[in-house]
């Protein structure tokens, strides 16, 4: 039986600690297990969520189970809805409430959205991409579902550190971009390591008959990376920030096309 006393965990991804408070000890335990490598109880939260666990049929959402995520800005707050959750976020107050069933998928989606909103004004991005650290430098492998993000992650040599096989987390600093580990896992079903490294290159993935790296024209790089950016909000100001961030990114970090056959020899090209 659940306790009525709210407890919390602090989940720090990309040096952005988010506090999650809930009265459900079972859900709290689920959070501790899922985000274990990303917990930091000593951090100062930049955002707080109150999570209320409710039975699936009683979630206050107008979205059907088979409909896509809806994100809209209404009366000064962001409203996020999917079949399994309803969330309201106030980025000015840095506070949000989520009504959801006791699964990790809703909070995972809410984390992605709140991080994408917080990062947008700082020049950072969430990108549909795997990322891996090798020799102290991060490499990002971007592409749509099925192009090989998990495959290239699985083929990484033992000296490589996996940051994620699904959602890469990029932040801009004065001397360049840094990639951070995330707990957002794809088919590998394994969270990334909670470390960061300077971003050395972005590879646009394609599978083909041989391993090769080809140059990509700047405009094509922008179009390709934009397609992979996670951004949910139809807000003029934020769309402008994201566009500027991607322009900066492709002008500062080399973007190449990586065609590969699915075996480990492709990593001989990634140095």
């Amino acid at each position: 039986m659940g306790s009525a006393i709210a407890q919390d965990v602090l989940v720090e991804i990309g040096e952005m600690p988010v506090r999650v408070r809930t009265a459900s000890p079972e859900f709290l335990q689920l959070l501790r297990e899922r985000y274990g490598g990303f917990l930091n109880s000593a951090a100062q939260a930049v955002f707080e969520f109150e999570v209320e666990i409710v039975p699936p049929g009683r979630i206050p959402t107008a979205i059907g189970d088979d409909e896509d995520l809806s994100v809209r800005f209404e009366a000064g707050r962001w409203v996020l809805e999917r079949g399994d959750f309803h969330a309201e976020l106030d980025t000015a107050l840095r506070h949000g409430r989520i009504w959801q069933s006791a699964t990790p998928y809703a909070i995972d989606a809410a984390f992605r959205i709140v991080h994408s909103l917080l990062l947008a004004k700082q020049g950072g991005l969430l990108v549909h991409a795997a990322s891996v650290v090798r020799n102290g430098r991060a490499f990002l492998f971007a592409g749509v579902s099925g192009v090989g993000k998990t495959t290239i992650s699985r083929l990484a040599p033992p000296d490589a550190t996996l940051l994620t096989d699904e959602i890469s987390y990029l932040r801009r600093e004065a001397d360049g971009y840094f990639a951070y580990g995330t707990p957002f896992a794809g088919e590998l079903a394994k969270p990334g390591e909670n470390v960061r490294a300077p971003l050395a290159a972005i590879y646009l993935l394609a599978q083909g008959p041989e391993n090769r790296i080809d140059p990509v024209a700047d405009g094509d790089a922008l179009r390709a990376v934009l397609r992979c950016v996670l951004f949910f909000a139809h807000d003029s100001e934020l769309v402008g920030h994201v566009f500027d961030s991607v322009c900066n990114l492709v002008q500062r970090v080399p973007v190449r096309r990586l065609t590969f056959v699915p075996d480990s020899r492709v990593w001989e090209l990634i140095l």
Partner: protein
Amino acid sequence: MSPVYIARTKEVAARSIGNEMMIMSARDSTLFSLNETATAIWQAADGVTPLAEIVERSVCANFEVDPATALRDAEELVEGLSRHGILKVSNLPIEETP
């Protein structure tokens, strides 16, 4: 025929990347890529210079193109960009809104 005035809207983000002017509509996140002549028109769209004068000064003076063809192409471009909310078009000079 009355003059046509064009102005860039504020609902876009634009950056020059490589040899292309890339413009994103903040309204619907559509991405546009302008060629050199379209970029020249876009950059000269100040709301107070008539389109015909922009074409003469920014296109005909810099590119080998027949003036009548250049103006016709420019009118098509302007119509397309205005449809996507990238440009404002008016028969009167367009005041800049704060």
